[in-house]
């Protein structure tokens, strides 16, 4: 695809905006640069920490390394350094030259005397940034909130933010502003996570003990991100304590966690290793053993998952830092039938990243990284000497460099490049017998090369107006098929006054890899497929605008955003598509368009003993797949809503610090019911002679319309208490009550046959609603030594 005229014009504007007004600004007054780092008392960088001068209404946020840079007029200033979960710090400063300062913040909640968590500076910073549609998740908040089975899950916490829907009860899949779950770019320290779920999405792969921060971008995507249409989930792992060796962990209802961290070479670096494992299998084995020999008892298969995170960093010198990240997670499922059948199924991600940070000067630094990301599933059956295996994987090797340059205090330039080699193991099948009669193998593999170049500038035109423009050039090649895209990104913020700002942004995204699934849920057997042959890249554009208001003397931030998003080449699959080990898989795709729009209202409070937020979303999502490729399309070519379309979504989250030992939390969710497809008609099928006897008792359903039935509204209240124990408050008991008033939310509805108990004959049909989770209390013990 050639560069369009408009794209070149935009790029020119970007360059001119950077070159223009800097000299005029420099002549206005004497200014100096304050730069430095914000770290925790453990020595870990605090990305997103705010460094502000409230009197001037200016401030900045620390980058991913905890670096900040702020231009201030010469003279005396009072600085406020803040980060959620840490005690706010105030420092007086007489600025007479360019100066570097390092700030160390203490964690809140670790001192008996401390009761207030300050976050006003964070809200101020949020008001001032041009970035819209971004949610920064505090791990402290996530850990305090009540969780299903007591398992803290950052992706489920993100579902409590406006504009983000879950796929269903208890699942951690994210559906952002009408996009599907495979359209989220999930990054773990810059490496792509292809399947961020354990156990069909009931749990995410992220162990909260190892996570430093999570940012979710729903719109206004910065130019350094690309490759997915709907959202970016940027997860950063902690670096580990640079001062002391520390062990933390927890023992919960279904899993236990252990983390060990400490300094390397007297604080020149640090490491953290964290592991988690569930123990469903221990319970189910005991249950199976207790019921062994009972005729009507079917043994429960073995299942467990584990994941391990590791990260190390080392300071090579004043200007060079190395970071090494690793992740390994697996779900393991095993089953031995009484028929002699052994069934094993495992799946998971393996991720590694090596990043080198080099600081050229206080104005320029670069991050260069290489990463490998692998997702695979393997399924094997064994009977006597016969074996059957099925599997798939995707493996990426990525190299990228990201430069950040601040030539003046008005410009923040970012530029970079990345190159990813994908290997798509679309399907692997092998069958063998010990006697050699069966010896069959089949592999369908493709390669893809994905590249991107980007540049962006955040330009402070005046105290009131801030502009951000970016351009991302992307390309993808698989075999002889090549595609390219120009992705402009633009954002603007106008501050009406110190307490009100208006924002607008636009982004275009391409997605070159596609999830192959014919299921409404994320399954481990879903595979990824490159753009090739008839499968064109998916494309999406989004425009959003909104206003932010600081209320209540800066204690509350009210944000209202509206968005419209439209996409082309959205993918679905033919009914009955052959998705496994199919060398002509591209013929199974069908293509359509999507569009969604909505309004998100978000009120948050981050100061005082009581914090939390209220979010409300009014939204519509649509899809259309016209008849094509010998199919009737989807829904006979008529517009339809995806099953995660929800008109109303209300979340209320409250965290209250009763005293230094006790935190009370509550979250309430109300959403319109999920959409589902129910059969309208049925017919009986006798089948060929020698099959079932009589008219088959299981009728064949006929589904004329997609997602035309709406389940009952979903609502749920979760409650939590965190009780800190020990003289240093380094242990806690966390009580979570999921679904506190035991609401029977609908997970799905089906039509069951009603049988006469005497004759066993079918006498009618009945709609039944299945709920997944009743009230579930759980208790977790957490420690830190």
């Amino acid at each position, binding site marked *: 695809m050639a560069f369009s005229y408009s794209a070149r014009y935009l790029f020119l504007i970007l360059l001119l905006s950077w070159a223009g007004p800097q000299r005029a600004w420099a002549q206005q007054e004497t200014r100096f640069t304050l730069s430095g780092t914000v770290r925790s008392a453990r020595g870990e960088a605090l990305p997103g920490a705010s460094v502000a001068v409230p009197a001037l209404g200016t401030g900045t946020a620390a980058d991913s390394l905890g670096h900040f840079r702020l231009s201030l007029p010469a003279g005396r200033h009072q600085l406020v350094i803040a980060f959620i979960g840490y005690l706010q710090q105030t420092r007086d400063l007489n600025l007479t030259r360019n100066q570097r300062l390092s700030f160390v913040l203490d964690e809140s909640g670790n001192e008996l005397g401390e009761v207030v968590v300050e976050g006003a500076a964070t809200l101020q910073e949020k008001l001032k940034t041009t970035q819209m549609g971004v949610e920064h998740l505090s791990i402290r908040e996530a850990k305090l909130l009540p969780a299903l089975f007591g398992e803290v899950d950052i992706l489920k916490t993100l579902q409590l933010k406006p504009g983000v829907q879950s796929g269903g009860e208890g699942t951690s899949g994210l559906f952002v502003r009408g996009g599907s779950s495979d359209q989220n770019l999930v990054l773990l320290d810059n490496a792509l996570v292809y399947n961020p779920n354990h156990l069909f999405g009931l749990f995410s792969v992220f162990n909260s003990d190892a996570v430093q921060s999570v940012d979710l971008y729903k719109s206004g995507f910065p130019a350094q991100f690309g490759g997915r249409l709907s959202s970016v989930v940027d997860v950063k792992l902690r670096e580990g304590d640079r001062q002391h060796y520390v062990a933390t962990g927890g023992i919960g209802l279904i899993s236990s966690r252990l983390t060990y961290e400490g300094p390397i070479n007297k604080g020149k670096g640090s490491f953290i290793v964290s592991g988690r494992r569930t123990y469903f299998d221990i319970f189910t084995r005991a249950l199976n053993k207790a019921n062994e020999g009972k005729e009507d008892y079917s043994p429960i298969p073995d299942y467990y998952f584990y994941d391990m995170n590791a990260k190390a960093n080392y300071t090579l010198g004043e200007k060079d830092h190395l970071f090494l990240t690793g992740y390994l997670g697996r779900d393991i499922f095993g089953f031995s039938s009484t028929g*002699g059948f052994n069934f094993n199924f495992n799946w998971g991600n393996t991720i590694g990243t090596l990043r080198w940070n080099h600081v050229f000067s206080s104005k320029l630094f670069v991050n260069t990284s290489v990463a490998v990301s692998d997702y695979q599933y393997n399924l094997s059956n064994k009977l*006597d000497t016969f074996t059957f295996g099925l599997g798939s994987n995707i493996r990426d090797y990525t190299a990228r460099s990201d430069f950040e340059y601040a030539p003046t205090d008005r410009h923040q330039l970012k530029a970079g490049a990345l190159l990813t080699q994908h290997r798509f193991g679309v399907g692997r099948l092998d069958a063998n017998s010990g006697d050699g*009669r069966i010896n069959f193998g089949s592999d369908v593999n493709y390669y893809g090369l994905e590249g991107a170049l980007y540049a962006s500038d955040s330009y402070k035109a005046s105290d009131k107006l801030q502009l951000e423009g970016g351009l991302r050039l992307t390309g993808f090649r698989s075999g002889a098929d090549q595609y390219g895209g120009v992705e402009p990104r633009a954002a603007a913020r106008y501050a009406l006054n110190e307490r009100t700002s208006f924002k607008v942004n636009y982004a275009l995204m391409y997605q070159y890899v596609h999830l192959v699934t014919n299921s409404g849920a994320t399954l481990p057997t879903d595979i990824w497929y490159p753009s090739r042959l008839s499968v064109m890249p998916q494309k999406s554009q989004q425009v959003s605008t909104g206003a932010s208001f600081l209320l209540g003397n800066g204690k509350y931030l009210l944000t209202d955003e509206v968005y419209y998003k439209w996409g082309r080449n959205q993918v679905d699959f033919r009914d009955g598509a052959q998705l496994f080990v199919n060398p002509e898989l591209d013929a199974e795709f069908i293509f359509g368009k999507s569009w969604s729009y909505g309004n998100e209202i978000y009120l948050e409070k981050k100061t005082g003993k009581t914090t939390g937020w209220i979010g409300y979303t009014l939204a519509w999502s649509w899809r259309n797949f016209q008849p094509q490729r010998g199919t009737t399309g989807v829904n006979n070519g008529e517009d339809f809503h995806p099953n995660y379309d929800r008109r109303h979504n209300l979340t209320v989250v409250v965290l209250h610090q009763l005293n230094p030992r006790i935190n009370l939390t509550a979250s309430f969710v109300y959403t319109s019911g999920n959409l589902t497809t129910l059969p309208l008609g049925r017919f009986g099928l006798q089948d060929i002679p020698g099959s079932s006897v009589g008219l088959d008792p299981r009728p064949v359903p006929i589904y004329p319309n997609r997602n035309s039935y709406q389940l009952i509204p979903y609502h749920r209240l979760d409650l939590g208490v965190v009780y800190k124990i020990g003289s240093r408050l380094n242990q806690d008991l966390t009580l979570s009550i999921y679904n506190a008033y035991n609401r029977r939310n609908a997970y799905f509805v089906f039509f069951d046959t009603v049988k006469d108990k005497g004759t066993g004959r079918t006498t009618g049909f009945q*709609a039944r609603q299945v*709920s997944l*989770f009743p009230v579930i209390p759980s208790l977790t013990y957490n420690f830190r030594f």
Partner: protein
Amino acid sequence: MAYFLKPTALLLAILALAGCGKLQNDINVPLPAYSAELVVECYLEPGKVPSLAVSTTVPYLSSVLPQIPTDVTVTLTMPDGTAVPLPFQPNYQALIDTVSGVKFHSHIGRTPLVARPGDVFKIDVVDTKGRHVTGTTTMLAPIPIDSVNYKFNDKTGSERKAYFLTNFRDPISLDDCYRLQLHKGNPAKGALLKSPEVDMSVEDRLLNGQQFVLGTSYRFNAGDTVTATLYHIDRSFYRFRQSTRDARNANGNPFAQPSAIYSNVQGGVGIFAVLSSTTATKVVR
């Protein structure tokens, strides 16, 4: 797919352990109006009198009784172009017979069918309401079963069981599909009309022109007489069967995507096929 069922069962088992109270409730679902279509199910067999069942689709939550229209005219066109009417002579008894294995038919001919591989047959079904279903099918060549064999596990007593293997070779041509049924019992006593022990469908997409070995788990006892019936079916029949299976599985499986029914008849729903089969019988000792 079958291998999702066990993880799903596990998940539900865990959830059942964790939960309390009733998690399944009867509800009323108001369904919109649904217009009925003709359903045609016709399996011709060489040497047997041609018959078919014509019914209609019904609203899902309506009465369980099948709707058998009485105003339907059926014409079977033979390979030589001869049109043979199949009169309406329903054997309603078969609808309530759960023992003999005799299938219900609404229409039946008078003389046994003569069919050879390559023969093309046509069906025409029309009722007085103007609903009109047509279909065409070709008889495929039967595929010989090369061998059947079995092997016992190393257990004793009632746990001593055998698996059963059926071997055949796929022809070089593409798009061959197969359906294998294994019946237990004496074929001479009608065992092949009863529900099979094993019923599976496969295609030659990955094994074109190669040897197929289809096996079972350890499930047969010493003394069982096992008959393998191998049907050579075309892709449209395979796809119809697959689509009905997918549609059924979607009802009650929250992970499944509902499937449309891919019939090989036009103007209604159903299947029209000539069965081309071979059999092999072995006593497991």
